[in-house]
């Protein structure tokens, strides 16, 4: 039986060097993008209020959407929504 060797692997991280993050925009590596269920949404705006990055904006019909370039996928809106309307959908 072969002895298993411990090898250290480089974690997938773009921030190891100074300035390495500058070509990326904040929303490049997120866990998921929030999606609103418009049938149940009461348009209270709690998601807008608690978004740390100001990514949630109000559309013309009064519902809310997340800006793809700004959203980092933290999931605060998903957790704070009173009616559980928001789900985090994985992309790609």
């Amino acid at each position, binding site marked *: 039986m072969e002895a298993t060797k411990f090898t250290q692997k480089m974690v997938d991280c773009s921030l190891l060097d100074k300035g390495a*993050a500058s070509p990326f925009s*904040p929303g490049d590596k*997120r*866990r998921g993008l929030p999606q609103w269920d418009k049938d149940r949404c*009461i*348009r*209270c*705006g*709690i998601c*807008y*209020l*608690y*978004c*740390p*990055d*100001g990514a949630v904006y*109000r559309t013309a*019909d*009064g519902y809310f959407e997340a800006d793809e*370039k*700004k959203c*980092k*996928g*933290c*999931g*605060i809106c*998903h*957790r*704070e929504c009173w009616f559980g309307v928001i789900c985090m959908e994985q992309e790609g």
Partner: protein
Amino acid sequence: MDKYSLMVPNFLPCKEYFDIKKNNACPGCGISLAVRHVYKAIEGAIEKATWEAPAACDIFGKKSAVSIMRVKKDKAEVVICFDNEAGGKLEDAIAKKMPAVAVAQSYKYVATASPSYPFDLFDKVKKAMETEGKSYIHILCPCPVAWKFEPEATVKVGFKAVETLAFPLYEVGSGFYNITIKTMQPKKLDVYLTAQERFEKLSAKDIAQASATVEKEYARLAENAQPK
């Protein structure tokens, strides 16, 4: 269309001042959320605001590892401290001394705030901007990386800090001393401490000691505060 008139952010300015290109914060950052609401409150004075990096800032004669923002507008001088408890000790987490020091140094308006209560935070910053002379605001910003919790729980942990009385929200000015968010039935301190993985190695004795300190601090605060 307007079946519901419950739109919460109607009470806040809807313009975003937060510069997304310079925003390198982690997902779910408490400081990011606090700064966004502070910027909405100070509006015209954003360009005059100066930042001091952690470890370089000098507050009350002591070097401290918190981010400080200083704003000057007309006669108002506001110091806003964004505290994410980077030190990570239990003593730092339960008894905040800096607001008390600010009161002792005759600041005109001193308040504590939390980004979990955005309207409260907004009102306090507005009030500080209208006060003549120096004012100080201490904001407790939950940090998912240093406190070790899921990024989506940032706001919930902020609520727990206030509900367990570990970080009571109050304001002190000339002639008033108010607890702004009152908790009817305070939760046990465990609720706040166990939500963060950084405190997972605490013994029961430590927690008992800490909750005794919290109760003592809150009793002192409630004694000073005026009945509303």
